[in-house]
Structure formats: C-alpha cells, structure tokens
C-alpha cells in the first residue's frame, strides 16, 4: 500500500495531476449545472412564468 501511494517517489506529481483533474472535472459539472439553473430562472422570468422561476430561485438560494 505504501509503495502504491509513493509511486516510485513521484507521488507529488502523479497524485497532484489526478487530484487537479478531479477538481477541474467537478468544477465543470458544478458550473454547467449552475449555468443551466440560472438560464432557467432568467428564461422563466422573461416569459412571465412566475411559478417555475420562483421555484428555481428558491432552489438556488
């Protein structure tokens, strides 16, 4: 296990690159979801559809 974690002494670089990748991918999911929610709120507001807009604003807050 220790050997696996140490990665031949390259652990900083190997784990660093995988953790960075994970963070960026999670960031992409979160921002894409937020972008969609915001668009839904804005679109609903402009089409005078108070109920979905209100529900989405509540969900965002």
């Amino acid at each position, binding site marked *: 296990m220790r050997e*696996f974690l140490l*990665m*031949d*002494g*390259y652990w900083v*670089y*190997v784990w*660093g*690159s*995988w953790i*960075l*990748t994970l963070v*960026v*991918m999670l*960031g*992409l*999911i979160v*921002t*894409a*979801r937020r*972008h*969609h*929610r*915001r*668009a*839904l*709120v*804005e*679109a*609903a507001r*402009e*089409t*005078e*559809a108070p109920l*979905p*807009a209100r*529900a*989405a604003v509540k*969900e965002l807050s």
Partner: protein
Amino acid sequence: MWLWFHKLGSPPYFYRTAGRLIPWFAIPAVLLLVAGTVGGLAIAPSDYEQGDGFRIIYVHVPSAYLAMFGYVAMAIAAAIGLIWRMKLAFAFAAACAPIGAAFTFLCLATGSLWGKPMWGVWWDWDGRMTSMLVLLFLYLGVIALRGAFDDAAKGDRAAALLAIVGVVNIPIIKFSVDWWNTLHQPATISKLSAPSMTMDMLGWLLIMIVGYMLFFAAVVTLRLRGEVLLRERGARWIRGLDSRA
C-alpha cells in the same frame, strides 16, 4: 434521418431530447473513468524508464485529445452557425468554449507536472507546449469576444470567426513534434504506425479517452441546454418547463 436532424434544430425538441441524453453520456463516463483510474494507477505496469511517473499519461493525453477535439467541434459549429444561421450551432460553440478551455488548462498543468520530474523543468517554449498555450489563449479569446458585445448575435458571429481562424493551430499542435526538434516526445498513439505502448498500458489509456469523451458530451449537453434557454428567452415553450427540467 433528415427529419430527425431537422427536428433537432427546433429548440424545444432539442432541449427535451438533450435532457434525456445526459444520463446516457454521464453514467458510462463515470464507469469508464473509474475503471480507467483503477487500471491506470494500480493495474497497468510501471514504465521501465519513468517508473510510476508515467501514470500521468492517463490524465494528460485524454485532456490533450479533448482540448483539440473540443476546439474542432466548436469551430465546425461556428461555421455551421455562420453559413446556415443556425442558432443552435452558435449555442453549441458557446457551450464548448469554457469546457475546451478547462481541458486545455488541464493538459498544460498535468504536462507541467509530468515535465518537472522527467525533464527537470516545469515549462519549455518548445513547439508542442507553445502551440497548446496558444490554443488556451484562443479559447479565452473566443469566450471574451462573445461576451464583449451587447448584441448576442454580433458576439456569436465575431466569436465564430475567431474560432474558425484559430483552427489553423490544430495541425500545428499535432505535427509540432514532427516539424521541430521538441523536448516533448512524439505521438504515443498514431493512425499511421503502431503505438509505442504495450496493450496492458494502452488499453487503460483508451478507456480513459472514451470516458473523457463521454464526460465532455455530458457536460457540453448540460451547458448547451442552458445556452438554448438563454437564447430562447421569451419563447412560449419555456412557460411549460418545470424548474427542475
């Protein structure tokens, strides 16, 4: 087929279809990425020269593929938008840009993390790295240019032109390692010659590449739904949407 394609151009139909497609991209993406991670980190054998340091390839190469693939997809969509005035094509180009930029950043960052222990430097201004950095600037330029206009349609057209012009950088990235004497190694996987990796290493890399592609498809589709809504503000069909749709 053409009828389906034509229907897909309709924003309400596309919005609903895209919503149904996301799980079909996301679930296999997660499964493949988990399998590729386990395989790449624990099952694939160590490299005889680089030891376990070579395992960065499993996140670096798929990021590089997606950075270039995302740009080409964005440029094709931009061209379709300019030629056939398809709003959905502009929306697709807008959705691709930030995701492609993120993968370009990942490619550069993981490449740097790989370069330091193997070459002794975090960065070198060689052909491959410099052209990849130019790709990141192109993505950022496309995003900034689109946002610089008050009129969204003008922003879309200007960003589309920049995206199309920037395609010239893609073959430069691809062939930079052949054209110039670079610190970066030549292509590991090539269509014209046998791969320079054994199958027990290459298999996990291919799994990661497919997983990344599906992940890209899922995130672009999610973002594209948002772009469609923003471009369709005021349309009647939005009135019937559930806030969780």
